Each structure stands twice: as structure tokens, then as C-alpha cells.
């Protein structure tokens, strides 16, 4: 096992200091708003999404308290409908999808041996847009004008006739914010992964986690436009009287469902696929061997992504679309179990032949097997038209989706935090608290959500603010509430663990787990430019290669943000462009875009006048600096 050694020569040390000077964000308040370093932005992004996770969790706990007993009046129907709409919207749009992109925007450059993400200013802009969108939604909620038509906002309930006022407009505009941010992040990640890999990191040496982020980013490009289109049509229906969804004027209520679920089902896989990469990273490191079946794992992820676009109708079996069409979607929905099964079997094979180190990250990864497998099997039940007709829109689906999303995404995500926290901060998270965190979460989760399967079969529909006594639902609802509180306590332990370990945790060093991928080959936390000497990649697990890292990249300028661009397939060195430096315009442009988006909730003229400050902001953002241009031109080499 080899790590890239910390530079010892004086020259290298000078270079390291110079690099730090070049790549760090400017100091002070201005610097805080001008920051574009991918690690700075990613940490803010992760903290923001985690904040929304906690907020969404608190909303869930209020709902569980309301449902703890029949005919409860802790909250009324109006507030309850806002609660479940906000909970779903928060968890899907403000936590689950963006947190995966946030973690990816920290780790991907490090795993690739790159100095930065591509388009760092755009990355900062995407973060600010996300933050402002989320804040807008929560300001509306706190003013009691939070959306109340469900996170799926079916028309005509969400249309102008049945949801007057501005509540649904805030929801629709939040979609615009978050999807804009997600699309930008996808472009950034795809470019980074295709063009900024370390020399020698051919596509078939790319870490499995990076593959999952690549596939996810492509899915974002195809899925998100659908919901942006749908929500924009909803806004114009509400704001300027178009009739896209109004059957009385030739529109169609089902159009919304097709557009929404064409995005909505792939979205589940946007949430689920990056954690498959977490699993592959954690299992390899803690089994002390490469993941079995690398090509099968990569192909399975790609197959999942393709199939994910062909099964949206299984959300619509109860509508009156033709029966034969539904059967097609049964087959495609069941088929997606195959790539998932391949990955599960490959991981079990890896564990089978590995030597296991039972640290907290591995525990969370093992929790995935139990919960996700159960969730996947109930997914097969939902794929069947006939069975779905009974359990659709009941608590059975609530159970299923939480088994899939919490088991499939949140457990690996917590494992990933325990795994990469030392890289983020230089210190390990506490192991004892970590085990408490895991077991409380695991037990609480099953106590909370398993009974919901039975509740659904026993006839309890979703999205009801209360239910009558004597239906046989009381005990199971109480259990679900108790389990929910356990999850809350477990997340609290996690927060305590993070706060304590950040200052008092065991110092980690560059590679505390003895892992094999490149992010562990630099200091923890990494320097501003990620690597003092960018590595050359010699295998799928470069740090585990018997000969170690074969060479380092030299010759890149350390007094400006010069990076190495490599070719798409084989990662052969190609170009050395200069990355942009920090400035305030991405932040100010995001403010201008926010003014337009929020303003357009109230008047269509906001789109006209709001475009002016955006144009100014974007122009100044891209305004060339002649001194820098001259310096860069001078360093060009013409073959």
C-alpha cells in the first residue's frame, strides 16, 4: 500500500505554500460571498441540505404526533396538509437529490486527482440558487402560506380553481429553483468527470462512486426538464390563465401526471444511485479488497438509469389508461430489480471473500442490505397492476418508499459521512456514538415503518390528517410514532457526534481506513488545490497498487489556477487551461435570479424587469480581465 507522501523538499514546500495562496478563497466577508473553491461550496451545500433534512424530519415528527392516536386534534387539516406537502417537498427537492450532488461536488475532484471542479463559479451560483429557493419555501411556510397540494401537486387540485392564493405558486417556483441548481450541478459534474481525470485514469479505472455520479448527472439532464416544463405550465395556468391542465378548455389533467412522473420516477434513482457508489466505496475499504465484478457493477448502474425512464406509469395504474400499456410497465418495473439484484449479489460476494473491519460506515452499509432489500421486494409488489390497485395511495406505499429511500439512500449516506468525515475535517467521528447512532436508527426505522405496510393493507389511505377509532389502526400508528421518535433521537446523537468530533475527534491523517482511491492520497482536510502534486493513476484502486502511484504531474503553474485537462476515454494529458478566480458576481447574479423567480409569483412583469439585473450580473461575471488574459496568453504553447 502506498500513499502519496507529503512533500519534503524545500522547493516542494514553497510550491505547496504558493498553491495554497493561489487556490484558496479570499478572506473576510467579501471572500465569504466570493468563495468558489469546490470544497468550501460543497461543505456549505452539505450543511444546508442537512439543515433541510432536519427541518423535514421535524415536520414528520409533528405529523407522527398528530397520527399517534385516532381523532387527534393536535393539528388541523389545513396545517397537516401543509406539513406533508412541506415534508415531501423538502426531503425530495431540498435534501435527497441535492445532498448527493453536494457530496459529489466535494469528492469527485478528489477521487479523480483533480485540483477543482469544472466551472467553479457556476458551482457557487448553483449553491446560492438552491439556498435562496429553499429559504423562500420556508419563509412562505412560516408565514402560513406554505404549499398544501402535496409534493406531487396534482392538477386540478393545485390549479387556479381549487388552490387560490399563492401557496402552490411557492411550490412551483421552488421546483424551478432546485431544478436549475441541479441541472447546473449535473453539467459541472459531467464535465469534471469526462475531462479532468488524472492521467492514466481511463474510464475503466474510474472509481465506482464516480461512475454513479456520472450516470446520475446524465439522468438529471433528461429528467429535470420534464418537471420544469410541467411546473412552468402550472405557473402560467395559475398566473396568466393558460389552460394546459384544464379539461374544460381542451387541456388534460393526466398530462401533469405523465410529465411529473416522467421526472418523478427517475428522481428516485437520482437519489438511489449515488448511494450505490457509497456502498461500493465503503464495502471495498472495509473488506480490504476490490469490489467483485466491476464491469457488471458499472453496467448495472447504467441499466438502472435507462430502465428508470421507462416505468413512470406504475404511479398511475389507478387512472383509466389502457390496460395493455399498464402491463408493459409492470414488466419494465419488475425488470429494474435485476440490476439491483446484480449489485447486491456482487457486494455479498465481496464481503464473502473479504476480511471485514466492522466500523460504523460498514454497519450503515450492512443496514442497507436489510432495509433496501425489503423495500425493493415491496417495490415488486407495487409493480403489479392488480396488487397496486389495492395498496396504491395507502400507508403501504409510505412504508415502501421510506424503506427504499431511507434504506437505499440515507443509510449509505450516513455511512458515507462516517467514512469521509475524516477527509472533510481531519478528525474521525466517535465510534461509540456512531454505533448508538446506527442501532437506534436501524431499530427505530423498522419500528416506525414496518407497521405501515400492515396499515395500508388494513385500509388506511395516505395523506389523511386524522382517522376514526375502531378501524384497527390505532396500535400500529402508535408504534410508528414511537419509532419516529427513535429516529429523531438517533439523528440528534449524530449531530452531537459531529459537533464533538470536529474539535475533539481522533486525528485522522491522510488515510485512516487504509482505503485505495485517490482522495485518500492527500492531506485531511485537503489543501485548497487538493493535491500538492496531482497524482497519475495506475489502477482502479491506485493507492492499493503494488507499485503505488506511478508518477506525479509536474509543470502546472502554481501562481495561477492552471489545471490539467485529459482526454475523455483514456485520460491522456491534453490541455492546461486556467480556472476562473473567485468573485462576487455568481452570488449577486443568484440574488438577481431569485428576485425574478419570486417576483414572477406575483406578477408576470417580473420576468421582463427582473431580466435586467440578471443581464448586468451575468455580463460582469464574464467580463474579461486584460491582465489575466495577457498572462495566460503568454503561457500558451503552440505545437
Amino acid at each position, binding site marked *: 500500500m502506498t500513499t502519496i507522501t507529503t512533500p519534503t523538499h524545500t522547493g516542494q514546500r514553497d510550491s505547496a505554500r504558493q498553491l495554497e495562496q493561489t487556490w484558496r478563497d479570499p478572506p473576510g466577508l467579501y471572500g465569504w460571498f466570493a468563495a468558489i473553491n469546490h470544497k468550501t461550496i460543497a461543505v456549505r451545500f452539505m450543511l444546508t441540505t442537512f439543515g433541510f433534512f432536519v427541518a423535514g424530519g421535524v415536520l414528520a415528527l409533528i405529523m407522527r404526533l398528530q397520527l399517534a392516536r385516532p381523532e387527534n386534534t393536535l393539528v388541523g387539516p389545513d396545517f397537516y396538509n401543509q406539513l406533508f406537502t412541506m415534508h415531501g417537498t423538502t426531503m425530495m427537492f431540498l435534501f435527497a437529490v441535492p445532498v448527493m450532488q453536494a457530496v459529489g461536488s466535494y469528492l469527485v475532484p478528489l477521487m479523480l486527482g483533480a485540483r477543482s471542479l469544472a466551472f467553479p463559479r457556476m458551482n457557487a451560483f448553483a449553491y446560492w440558487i438552491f439556498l435562496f429557493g429553499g429559504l423562500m419555501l420556508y419563509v412562505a411556510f412560516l408565514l402560513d402560506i406554505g404549499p398544501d397540494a402535496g409534493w406531487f401537486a396534482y392538477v386540478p387540485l393545485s390549479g387556479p380553481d381549487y388552490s387560490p392564493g399563492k401557496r402552490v405558486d411557492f411550490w412551483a417556483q421552488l421546483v424551478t429553483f432546485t431544478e436549475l441548481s441541479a441541472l447546473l450541478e449535473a453539467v459541472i459534474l459531467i464535465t469534471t468527470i469526462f475531462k479532468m481525470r488524472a492521467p492514466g485514469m481511463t474510464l475503466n479505472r474510474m472509481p465506482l462512486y464516480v461512475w454513479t455520479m456520472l450516470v446520475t448527472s446524465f439522468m438529471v439532464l433528461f429528467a429535470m426538464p420534464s418537471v420544469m416544463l410541467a411546473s412552468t405550465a402550472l405557473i402560467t395556468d395559475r398566473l396568466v390563465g393558460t389552460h394546459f391542465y384544464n379539461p374544460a378548455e381542451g387541456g388534460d389533467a393526466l398530462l401533469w401526471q405523465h410529465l411529473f412522473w416522467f421526472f418523478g420516477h427517475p428522481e428516485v434513482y437520482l437519489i438511489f444511485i449515488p448511494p450505490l457508489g457509497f456502498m461500493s466505496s465503503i464495502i471495498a475499504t472495509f473488506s480490504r479488497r476490490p469490489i467483485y465484478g466491476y464491469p457488471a457493477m458499472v453496467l448495472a448502474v447504467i441499466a438502472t438509469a435507462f430502465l428508470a425512464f421507462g416505468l413512470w406509469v406504475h404511479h398511475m395504474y389507478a387512472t383509466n389508461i389502457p390496460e395493455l400499456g399498464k402491463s408493459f410497465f409492470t414488466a419494465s418495473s419488475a425488470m429494474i430489480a435485476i440490476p439491483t439484484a446484480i449489485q447486491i449479489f456482487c457486494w455479498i460476494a465481496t464481503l464473502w471473500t*473479504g476480511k471485514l473491519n466492522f466500523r460504523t460506515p460498514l454497519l450503515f452499509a450492512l443496514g442497507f*442490505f436489510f432495509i433496501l432489500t425489503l423495500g425493493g421486494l415491496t417495490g415488486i409488489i407495487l409493480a403489479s397492476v*392488480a396488487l397496486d390497485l389495492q395498496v396504491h395511495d395507502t400507508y403501504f406505499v409510505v412504508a415502501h418508499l421510506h424503506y427504499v429511500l431511507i434504506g437505499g439512500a440515507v443509510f449509505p449516506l450516513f455511512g458515507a459521512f462516517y467514512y469521509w468525515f475524516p477527509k472533510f475535517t481531519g478528525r474521525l467521528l466517535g465510534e461509540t456514538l456512531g454505533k448508538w447512532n446506527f442501532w437506534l436508527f436501524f431499530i427505530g426505522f423498522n419500528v416506525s415503518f414496518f407497521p405501515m405496510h400492515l396499515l395500508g393493507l*388494513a385500509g388506511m389511505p395516505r395523506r389523511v390528517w386524522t382517522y376514526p377509532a*375502531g378501524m384497527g389502526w390505532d396500535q400500529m400508528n402508535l408504534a410508528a410514532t414511537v419509532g419516529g421518535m427513535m429516529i429523531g433521537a438517533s439523528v440528534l446523537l449524530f449531530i452531537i457526534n459531529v459537533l464533538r468530533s470536529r474539535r475533539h475527534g481522533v486525528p485522522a491523517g491522510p488515510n485512516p481506513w487504509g482505503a485505495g482511491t485517490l482522495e485518500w492520497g492527500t492531506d485531511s482536510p485537503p489543501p485548497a488545490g487538493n493535491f500538492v502534486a496531482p497524482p497519475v493513476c495506475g489502477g482502479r484502486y491506485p493507492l492499493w497498487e503494488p507499485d503505488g502511484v506511478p508518477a506525479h504531474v509536474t509543470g502546472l503553474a502554481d501562481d495561477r489556477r492552471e489545471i490539467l485537462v485529459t482526454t475523455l476515454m483514456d485520460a491522456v494529458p491534453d490541455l492546461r487551461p486556467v480556472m476562473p478566480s473567485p468573485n462576487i458576481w455568481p452570488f449577486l447574479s443568484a440574488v438577481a435570479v431569485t428576485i425574478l423567480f419570486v417576483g414572477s409569483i406575483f406578477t408576470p412583469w417580473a420576468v421582463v424587469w427582473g431580466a435586467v439585473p440578471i443581464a448586468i450580473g451575468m455580463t460582469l461575471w464574464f467580463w474579461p480581465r486584460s491582465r489575466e488574459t495577457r498572462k495566460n496568453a503568454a503561457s500558451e504553447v503552440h505545437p
Partner: protein
Amino acid sequence: MKRIAALPVLSLAGAAAMAAPFQNALKPAGIQAERIHDLWLLTVGICSVVFAAVLVALLLALSRAGRSDAATPPDVASLAAPEPRLKRNVLLAVGASIALLLVLIVADFQTDRLLGRMPLSDAVHIEVTAHQWWWEARYNDPEPGKIFTTANELHIPVGRPVIMTLKSSDVIHTFWLPNLHGKKDMIPGRTSLIRLRADQPGTYRGQCAEFCGLEHAMMAFLVTAEPNDRYEAWADAQRREASNVLSARESRGRQVFMERSCVMCHTVQGSGANAVFGPDLTHVASRQTLASGVLPNNRQQMAAWVTQPQKLKPGTNMPATKLSGEELEALLDYLGTLK
């Protein structure tokens, strides 16, 4: 808080109608629900076996694998040499998964076909229209004189097929009667059909399953399945107009009905009240519940529902009606005659 005081009556409504298989997909009482239930048993069986197999494989892997720590050198031999035993086992497991999936898909197709082929001769035709937040049911008949309309409580004959035409007057609702069949959406601008048959007599509860706004939780209905002769008797009673033979106080009640807001929304056949915004009240006194399965139907609850509906079902489209004590008592007497 009057609402707190009012809400526990929900349970009374529940208990009143609580025959054993109440609202439960696992207690099928008709041919369609029975077929779905058969598929359910097969699917749950297969899925349980698969779940157990995956867990056993995982536990075996965990128990037989060696132990390590961060300093244990990684074993990268697999990068160079193939692992034929692992390959064989993984392929076997994937093959078994595909085979079981095929079984489930075929069983599902088969069930769909059976659901679509329920015999339909001698069917009862009902047109059900969902409203925010109640159900309107119109019993169709080739003879126009035999058509009648009721609300929230349906009766159907045991053993005869029922074809329901489903519509919505406002937003999307879903018709769900789990003991007899799965769900069907009611989408404005579209018409859908559901075909079912009750094979066991009893009263079954259904509920709107698609989120439809403020009082989605309080949009239930009851379906009573009974022998054909009792069903026909019930239908004949429903076809009759309200009696005009009234006592003085009942007449006074009808006068209140006609002069206050009631008449703006409700129909009482034979009385001259013909509005269609609210449930048809021609036979309201024969129903078990009020407000779409929310309240038990008795004099006290009817009084509360007429005078303060927003306390019992916040957001309902039924407005509160201010009445003097005398007017209210007379109105209740009159409503009591609508059997």
C-alpha cells in the same frame, strides 16, 4: 374547543357500522378482491423466500469472512485473476431472481385478465360522482322512471355484478372499496369504469384514496351488500318521492327547509327542492351516517351538522345555518320523515 368535543363521534359512526370485515384488503368479500388477494399470497410468499435467502447469504458472508483493521494489507489479487466460484454463484443467484420475477409477471398478467373477464350479465349500473368531499350515486336503469339518486351510502345485491361509472365534479378523487376491489381514479374530464361483485353480505367501508384537498380524510362511504330481494326492496323505497303527508310541525320543518339555505343545494324529490350541489336528501333518514361517513345519523348529530358543520368537518362546503330553537326542532322533525 368545540371541535375536540365533536370529533370523538367519528368513532361512534365507525363502531355503528363495524361489521367484521370493515375496510381491509386482506379480507376479500367479492370475486375481484379475492383474485387480487390470491396474487397477493403468491407474491408475498415468493418475496419472503427471496428476502430470507438474501439475509442468509449476507449473514453467512459476515460470519465466514475474516476480520481485519485499517492496517490489514488489501488483497488486490482479484484485479489480476478471475474468481470463477464467485462468478458462478452470482450468476446462479441472478438467474434465480430472473426466473422468480418471470413467475410473478406471468401471475400478474393472469390476474389482470381474470379481473377483466368477470361475468357481467344482469348487472346493476351505478354512476358514482365524487365531490369535494362526498359521493353521489345515481342508479341507472333502462326505464327512466326507475332511475334514482342517493349519496354516500350504496346498497348492492350479493352475487350480481355491479358496473360503476366513475366521474368527478371537481378535483381527482379515487374510489376505493378494499373488501370488494382495488382503486379507480375519478378524473375530471374523463370517465372510468369499475366492475365488482359482492359475494358475502355485509357492510363495507370505502374511502377516497387520492388526496383531494382539505377534508380528504373525511370522505368515506358505506356499501351494504344484501340478498337480491332485500336490495330490490331498498331500491324501490329509494325511488319513492318524499311523503307529503306531514304533521303540522313537520310541515313547519319543510317550510324552514324551503325558506332557508337548505333548498339552495339539496334535493328532496316530490317537495319542489331540486338543487344538485349537495347530497340528495329524499331518503336521508334511512342512512347510517352523515357528512360522508363522518357522523352517526341521529337527531343530535343532525342538529349539530345543520347549525355548525365547520366545527365537525372543517372546510366542508355545507354552510352553517342559523335557526331558532323552534325552527331547528321542526326541521329535524321534517328531516326525520325522509326515510
